[in-house]
């Protein structure tokens, strides 16, 4: 049985208009179950330390994306916002950003690939996640 320890950094939940705690953001039904199931399907390691944070467009009514930083798997998963409860894996509408493949530079162009990002972007994301997000420790079933 999985053991999930969740530490919600509530005090910083919506301190920033752009970054939010997923627990305070509508549109991610069953996100905790979805992530747990996804880790059980995909994890290569037994112990997995994840951090989840939501980035919302600065525009009024802008859409939100949840980022799941998963260092053991060397990836950032992207969860799409959905209005209705859905099958858990359907929240993972897009492929992940692979940290060993998709980081292509420090500044300037991020490249032509749909998943390429800069190291600075990843650092900012991880930093905001640590400040605002929800941390999960998930143990993969044997």
């Amino acid at each position: 049985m999985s053991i999930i320890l969740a530490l919600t950094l509530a005090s910083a939940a919506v301190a920033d208009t752009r970054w939010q705690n997923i627990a305070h953001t509508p549109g991610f039904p069953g996100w905790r179950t979805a992530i747990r199931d996804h880790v059980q399907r995909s994890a290569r390691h037994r112990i997995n330390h994840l951090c989840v944070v939501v980035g919302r467009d600065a525009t009024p009514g802008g859409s939100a994306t949840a980022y799941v930083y998963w260092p053991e798997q060397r990836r950032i998963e992207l969860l799409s916002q959905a209005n209705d409860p859905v099958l858990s894996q359907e929240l993972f509408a897009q492929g992940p950003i692979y940290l060993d493949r998709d980081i292509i530079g420090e500044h300037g162009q991020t490249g032509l690939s749909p998943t390429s990002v800069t190291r600075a972007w990843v650092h900012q994301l991880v930093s905001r996640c640590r400040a605002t997000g929800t941390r999960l420790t998930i143990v993969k079933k044997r």
Partner: protein
Amino acid sequence: MADPIQLDPEATPAGLRERLFLHETLSPGFPQYNRDDALRVMWFIRQVLANRVAHPRVFGLRSPQTEASIITDPRQFPGFEGYPHLDSGSMANVYQCVLLANAPHDRRQAAYRQHVVDAITVATAAGIPADQRVPTAGGWKRHGTPSPGPKFQFYRSLQGNDYYTTPLS
């Protein structure tokens, strides 16, 4: 019962496009799926490929390029660099669509069949219809990730991706 539907052979340009479209487009299994949006995405990708072939230097590429060399360049379409072998995630996206399109007892079959037909139609069309043309289509990024660069202008968001145009001269 409808005949089974198949993608074009892997080694053909149409077969490569079809697999790319199915990989990069949300399928009917997702609540955000909308057929019109899926078609727009497929046509946009087709225009991007044509633009990168016709204007490689604009995209920082050596010339000449072919669609196949662009799609299998890991800096452009990760997951397709080993084509026709696809990584497991890409493979699952593509072949689940075909599997469900040919599953007569699955309630999702009709929608998936239409989705696969759409991918084949866009991949094999002689040209891009006027109402789907975005002449300066340059690329797309996962929504919530940075723009491809300063020369790229945000066009619209569809299906979890942000689409960009760029000047071609």
